[in-house]
C-alpha cells in the first residue's frame, strides 16, 4: 500500500516535469499532500488512536487545503501569467528527471541490500527532493520556485517515512508550521516584488553583488 502511494507520488513528479501550467503545479502539490496523509494514516487503520490521527489531519489541512489555496490566491492576485518560463527546453527537462530518478532507484536498490529500508518510498522521496531542486534551478518564475521548495519538502516527508524515523508528534507539527510560515512569508515577499518590479522572475533579482 505504501509502495503504491509512493509510485503515485512519483507520477506526480512526472506530471510536474511535463506540464507548463502553474495551476498544474498546485494540483500536483495537492495530490502529494493527500498521498502523504494516506501513507501516515495506514498504520492507524488497524489500531486506531486519536493521537495518531493529529498529524495526518494537519497534513491534510496545511498541505492539501491551506497552502495550495494560498498559492492560487497569490497567482490570481498578482495576475501571474499562467505559463511557467523554463530556462531549458521542456523536452530536455523530462529526460533529465527520468534519468535522475532511474539512477536514484538503482542506487537505492543497491543500498537496500546492506541497510534495511523501504526502497520505493525512499527512492521516491529522494526523487522528489531532486526534482524540487531542478524546478528551482531551471525555472524563471519565483512562484514556481516556491512550488519547487514545497515539492522538496514533501519529498523529505516521504523520505522520513521511508527511513522509519519516528520523531515526536510535536516536532513534526512544528515542521509543518515552519513550512507553512515560510510559504506565507514568501507570498508576502512576492506581493512586494510584484509592486516593485514589473515581472516576478529571477531576472529582477540581480542588484546585490560585489
Amino acid at each position, binding site marked *: 500500500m505504501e509502495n503504491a502511494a509512493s509510485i503515485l507520488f512519483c507520477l506526480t513528479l512526472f506530471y510536474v516535469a511535463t506540464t507548463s501550467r502553474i495551476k498544474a503545479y498546485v494540483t500536483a502539490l495537492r495530490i502529494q499532500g493527500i498521498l502523504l496523509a494516506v501513507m501516515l494514516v495506514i498504520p492507524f487503520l488497524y489500531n486506531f488512536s486519536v493521537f495518531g490521527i493529529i498529524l495526518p489531519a494537519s497534513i491534510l489541512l496545511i498541505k492539501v487545503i491551506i497552502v495550495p489555496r494560498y498559492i492560487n490566491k497569490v497567482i490570481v492576485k498578482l495576475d501571474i501569467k499562467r505559463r511557467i518560463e523554463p530556462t531549458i527546453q521542456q523536452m530536455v527537462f523530462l529526460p533529465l528527471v527520468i534519468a535522475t530518478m532511474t539512477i536514484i532507484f538503482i542506487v537505492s536498490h543497491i543500498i537496500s541490500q546492506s541497510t534495511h529500508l523501504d526502497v520505493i518510498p525512499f527512492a521516491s522521496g529522494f526523487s522528489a527532493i531532486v526534482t524540487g531542486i531542478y524546478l528551482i534551478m531551471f525555472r524563471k518564475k519565483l512562484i514556481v520556485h516556491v512550488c519547487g*521548495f514545497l515539492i*522538496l519538502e514533501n519529498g*523529505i516527508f516521504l*523520505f522520513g517515512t521511508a*527511513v522509519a524515523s*519516528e520523531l515526536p508528534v510535536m*516536532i513534526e507539527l512544528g515542521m509543518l508550521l515552519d513550512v507553512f510560515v*515560510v510559504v506565507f512569508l514568501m507570498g508576502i515577499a512576492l506581493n512586494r516584488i510584484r509592486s516593485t518590479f514589473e515581472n516576478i522572475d529571477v531576472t529582477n533579482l540581480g*542588484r546585490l553583488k*560585489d
Partner: protein
Amino acid sequence: MYQFYTFIVLPLLTAGLCYFVRNIRLQYLFSLAVAALHLAVSICLFTGLYVEPLPSLFGADALGKLFLLILSNVYFWVVLVSYAYLKRPVSPRAEDGKKIYFSLLNFYLAANTAAMLSSHLGMYWVCAEATTLSVAPLVYYYRSDESLEAMWKYLFLVSVGIAFAFIGILLLTLSAQGGALEGKDLFFTTLAGGAASLNPIWLKAAFIFIFVGLSTKIGIAPMHYGDIDATSNAPSPVAALMSGSLRLTALLGVLRIYQIIVHTTCAQFASRLLIMGAMLSLFVAFIFMFKVNNYKRMIAYSSVEHLGLITLGIGTGGLAFVGAMYHALYNSIIKVVLFLMAGNIHSRYRSREIGSVRAVLTLMPLSGWIFLAGFLAISGIPPFGIFFSELRIFEGILFSDKPWLLAFVMFFLLFIFINMSRNIFSMLYTAGGSPDESDSGEKFEITHFAAAVLLLIACIISIASPAILYDTIEQIANDFGIYP
C-alpha cells in the same frame, strides 16, 4: 520551570503583547525588561548560581550554556539601542516596519533560545528554522528594493539549506539502524554516547548534509551569499544580531553532529570537511575584500572570515578548539560594535558606499573612534580578546598534523587586514566631499554607550580571563573528546 518560562515562554508572550500594543515606546520597555531578565537568568545558568531541570526535549550542557550567554548578551545590547535606532527618520514606506520590529525580536529570542537549549535534533531543527522566519521580515525593514531582494534570497536559500540539514537528520536515523541505537529518539547525548554503533557511511552522509545545509546560515563558503546580502541590507541592530548570534545558532547544529561524529571512526573525515569549508571561507573573504565597496558588506565578509576561523579551530581540534570557543564569544561582541557604528555612519551619510563616506573622524568623532577601536579589535590587536583567541587557534594549528595550513591562514588574514584597513582609513581620514561639513561633532547616544561598554567587556574578559569561562570551555572540549 521558572527558568524555562523566562527563557522561552516569556519572550513568546511578549512577542504577542508587542504585536497588539501600538505604542513603540511601550514595546521597547517591555522588550528591554525581558532582555534584561533573560540576560540575568542566562548568567545564573552559566555560572551555576541557579539551575533548574528543563522539560523534555530541552537541556543545558556546557556548549548550550556558553552559546546561550553569547546570544543573551548580544540580544540585550541590540534591544537597548533599538529604540534610538527606530526613532531615526526612514522613508514613509518603511514606517510600518517599525510596528512589528519588537514583536519579531522577541519571537527571535524565544526561537533562538529554544534552539540553543534543545537536546533533540528535531527540536533544534524546528527552532533553527523559526529563527530564520523571525529574522527575514526584519531584513526587509527599510522596504527598499535591495532589502526586498536580500530578504527573498535569505529566506529561500536558508530554507532550502535547512531542508538539507533535515535530510541529514533523517540519514542519522538511518545510520542508527541495526545498531544499539535503533528506534531511539534523536537526543544528542544518547547519540554521542552510543556513537560507535552508528553506521559510518550513513553517518558521513548525514554530516555532509547537515554541514552543507547549515552553512547557508553560518555563512561558510560557498553557501554564504544569502547571508552576506541579508546582513548587509538589514538595519544595523538586526545585522549585529545576525552576525553576533544567529550564525552561532547554526554553528551549534554543526557542533552537535560533530560531537556525535568525533567519537567514531569518521572523525577525521568530518574534521577534514570542516577545515575545507573554513579555508574556502577565508579564501572567499580574502578575494572579496579586494573588491568590496560597501562597508556593511565588508563587515559581513569579515563575519565569513571569522566564522571560517572558528570552524577551522573546531576542525583542527586540540588547543585550536578552545581558541575557537573563545573566538565565538569575542567575535560576537566586536561584531555588534562594528555594526552599530556602521549604522551610525550610514544614518549620517545616507550611503553604504565606502567611496562616499569621508572624514568620519572629523564629522562624527565618537562613532569614528569607536569604529576604529572595533576594527582594531576584530583584526586581532591586543588587548581585545580576539588577539588571544586567534593566538590559541594558530598555536593549535601549528601543533596539529597540518601545520602548513597556518601559512595559508596567515597569508589570507594579512591581506584581509590590509584591505580592511585601507577601506576603513579612507572612510575615517580622507578629507572633504562630505555632506553638511559645517555641522561637525555629534551627540553622545546610547549606541555609543553600548559599543563602548561592549569593547570594555571584550577587554576585561580577555585580561581577567575568568576561571568560570575557562572551565566551561574546558568542559565543552571534554564533551568533544578533547583534553587541552
